């Protein structure tokens, strides 16, 4: 029945598109992708399902409709057919995006529907996924596709609701003020128990001059108890407000942000049983050198242990999810957790909801700043040095976070954290002045935490180191050979914290681990033009646990992908 409808819908859509197109009121573009993959465990694994195959074909048809000069409607229809879904079985048509935006009276910009939102790293911010900085092209290519699939563009959160913005001009004190606000639906009512949850925010930015501003941010996640019952009283709220300032003097910039958070919970009897307040601030400066090719930035920040900001602390990756590819592995037949391969290949591990509970994370990947700058209970100095030459031949970046607990966790002793990051890019073809691309990338991340147990409790002494290397060689015009490697070693002793639903720590469990993850990938890619490419990749992923070798496993994968944008 569904298949009978598809040609009719396509025909009607095409007809109406053609009609609109005649009046130049509609334009359309889109993307198409077809992938086939095969994954298998080694022959030595006799306990689990050895092989999985999969794939699908999707076409995203995006329409940009202009009913009038000041209004635009954007839609994204997806036509999807899984591999093996013969004669339409499993085929689906989805409306993936619908938004209306416009300008009222040439003053007020507004958007309805699907909107992407971002404020500051402490208020509303989708922090980058782990180990994604400057990674090899072979990994970046698939990770970007998966992020686009989940509407993860930059550090924006994809939400549904409404927002608006306008600018006011002034003659005195400040030149202008940008004011914006939004309201989105975070959770819909479920039955007669779980109420609607909304998230709203506003930003006021006063531009003193083109290089200096001060501003104010406010964001709140809150329940609407009356949406389940007239007598309902239970309500959760998480609000964050901050002041922000930035000014430039020649090549020198000073900036700061400071604010506070509130978590309030009223129970079913209308009794306020939680009222947790936290605070943060960050101050820093930035200096540019060598005709803006070299940037040095240093900041000091302090985020209190009870600073909770759902919009900034929700993680991009859901480490509690079950990987799509061969989830049961090893002699012990356990469900593996999200690993290196899934970070770059699995599109189902992404978290699309802003959640008030601090989400779990993988200590091996980054336990120093698992919630980005807004990670609670951290204070210290961050330094970053970035260099990109004017011809884009070399690019390198070094960053270091020297952090410490604000309050000891279970002890008066404070953990010391160190997070070092280096990555670099060398465009060899530009160096040699050859036409075809030859480019290498590399990166290292080192994360550690230490705390003296004073002979009473186990010491904290945990380190992880992650390497990333990649190469891209354009053998003949538009035909690329790609290769990349990711390695993560983690070892030491740390404490896993258990938190209540209001994020307060209520238990610890000490653990020791010594693990190694490796991901090697190689492949070829033919770019028909800048928008169409065919890629064949092979990769091997392995996990080794020195403390429990029966947890070891490896997975091989072959992946064929055709992707185009039009």
């Amino acid at each position, binding site marked *: 029945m569904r298949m009978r409808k598809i040609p009719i819908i396509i025909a009607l859509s095409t007809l109406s598109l053609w009609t609109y197109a005649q009046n130049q009121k509609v334009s359309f573009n889109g993307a198409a992708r077809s992938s086939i993959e095969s994954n298998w465990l080694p022959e030595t694994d006799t306990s689990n399902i050895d092989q999985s195959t999969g794939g699908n074909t999707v076409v995203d048809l995006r329409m940009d409709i202009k009913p009038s000069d000041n209004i635009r409607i954007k839609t994204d229809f997806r036509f999807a057919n899984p591999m093996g879904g013969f004669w339409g079985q499993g085929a689906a048509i989805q409306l993936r995006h619908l938004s209306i935006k416009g300008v009222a009276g040439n003053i007020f910009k507004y958007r309805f529907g699907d909107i992407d939102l971002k404020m500051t790293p402490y208020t509303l911010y989708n922090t980058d996924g782990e180990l994604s900085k400057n990674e090899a092209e072979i990994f970046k290519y698939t990770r970007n596709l998966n992020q686009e699939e989940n509407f993860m563009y930059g550090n924006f959160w994809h939400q549904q609701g409404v927002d608006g913005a306008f600018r006011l001009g002034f003659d005195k004190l400040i030149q202008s003020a940008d004011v914006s606000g939004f309201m989105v639906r975070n959770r819909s009512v479920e039955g007669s128990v779980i109420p609607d949850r909304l998230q709203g925010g506003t930003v006021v930015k006063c531009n*003193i001059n083109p290089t200096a501003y001060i501003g104010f941010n406010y964001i709140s996640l809150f329940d609407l108890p009356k949406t389940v019952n007239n007598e309902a009283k239970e309500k959760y709220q998480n609000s964050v407000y901050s002041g922000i*300032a930035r000014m430039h003097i020649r090549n020198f910039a000073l900036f700061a942000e400071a604010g506070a958070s509130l978590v309030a919970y009223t129970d079913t009897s209308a009794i306020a049983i939680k009222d947790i307040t936290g605070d943060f601030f960050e*101050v820093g400066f930035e200096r540019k050198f060598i005709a803006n090719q070299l940037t040095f930035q240093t900041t000091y920040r302090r985020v209190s242990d009870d600073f909770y900001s759902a919009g900034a602390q929700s993680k991009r990756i859901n480490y509690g999810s079950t990987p799509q590819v061969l989830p049961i592995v090893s002699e012990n037949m356990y469900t593996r957790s999200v690993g290196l391969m899934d970070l770059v290949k699995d599109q189902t591990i992404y978290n699309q909801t802003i959640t008030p509970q601090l989400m779990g994370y993988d200590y091996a990947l980054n336990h120093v700043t698992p919630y980005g700058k807004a990670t609670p209970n951290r204070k210290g100095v961050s330094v970053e040095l970035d260099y990109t030459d004017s011809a884009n031949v070399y690019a390198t970046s070094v960053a270091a976070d020297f952090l410490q607990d604000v309050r000891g966790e*279970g002890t*008066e002793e404070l953990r010391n954290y160190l997070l070092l990051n280096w990555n670099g890019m060398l465009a060899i073809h530009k160096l040699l002045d050859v036409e075809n691309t030859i480019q290498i990338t590399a990166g290292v991340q080192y994360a550690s935490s230490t705390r003296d147990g004073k002979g009473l*409790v186990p010491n904290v002494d945990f380190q992880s180191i992650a390497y990333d290397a990649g190469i891209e060689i354009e053998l003949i015009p538009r035909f690329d050979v790609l290769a990349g490697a990711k390695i993560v070693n983690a070892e030491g002793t740390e404490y896993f*914290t258990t938190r209540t639903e209001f994020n307060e720590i*209520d*238990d610890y469990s000490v653990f020791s681990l010594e693990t190694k993850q490796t991901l090697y990938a190689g492949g070829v890619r033919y770019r028909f033009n800048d928008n169409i490419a065919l890629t064949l990749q092979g990769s091997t992923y392995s996990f080794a646990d020195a403390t429990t070798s029966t947890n070891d496993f490896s997975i091989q994968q072959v992946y064929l992908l055709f992707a185009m944008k039009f």
Partner: protein
Amino acid sequence: MKKALYYILAFALGTSLFASCEKEDPIGPSLVDLYGPFRILDSLTVPSTIDFTKDSLIIFGGTWSNISDWKITITGESSGAIKTIEGKSKTIDTLIASWDGTADGIFFKKEICSIQLTFKDYSDTITAKTTITELHDYSKDGIILEPFENTPVFYFNPLGTITLITNNSIPQGRKYAEIKSNEEITLNNQPKWWLGGFPGFIDNTLNFNFNETDSIYINFFAKGLGYTGSKISITAKEDQNDDGEIDVEYGYTTEDINSDNWQKYSISYSSLINNSITKKNNPSKLKELYISFVSDGIEGPKGFAIDFIIITQGKPL
């Protein structure tokens, strides 16, 4: 305005330097309590004699240095009855470690009990002894339908025996019943299925007096006698339209009673069903309750041992 911005940034910097010098209390539970060296601070305290008719709850005492998983095991030296109490804390007190004289399985007698306190992560063990002088009064826990201290009325179909056996290691009291019969294939090639049963336990006599929302449990102890295909069936008859007549029946049948050891059965009233109607059972409408001896329909000797049938409210026995 630029000056104002300078002041704001200077204030933020000053605040940061000031705040970074603060010394604050630790958050979360103390790690020393969780992972520090383990020491018993106050040993296990237990009264030397216990009279459960006077003290409805016996409170243990004890303190140690770390928050840890602990378990108190009380064993009746004569009956073999066992009661376990578990928790996670660094002290035991009125809230978390008390004993009302009940048992996990078969009941305690008037006997000496050994008490053992153990810890999940530490080898330390503390032992103590106490003597039960008076037993827990189970009549306060619910409606005792049959204690089997005297031979009850039991109907067989057509032949069978009910024998009271006196033994010390039994669930409750001094005696339990062994009920035996035979499954036979009748002339029309049908088994009997129903081999016997107690007379109905009637509301007028026992005063069930339950509320619609009460969670009701029918509890008893049983063990096998080496015969396969022996089961216990419970039938509840309700007057749902309050016309004084029984109008609906709900039933439940156990799996085979074949364990060599006494097993405690606690059957929730809500698990009694009637496949031909969708209306839920309602304990406030209960008028008659039947407990029967049924077979699997295969020819041969059947039987089981049974003791102490009691209905409890709110929680299983």
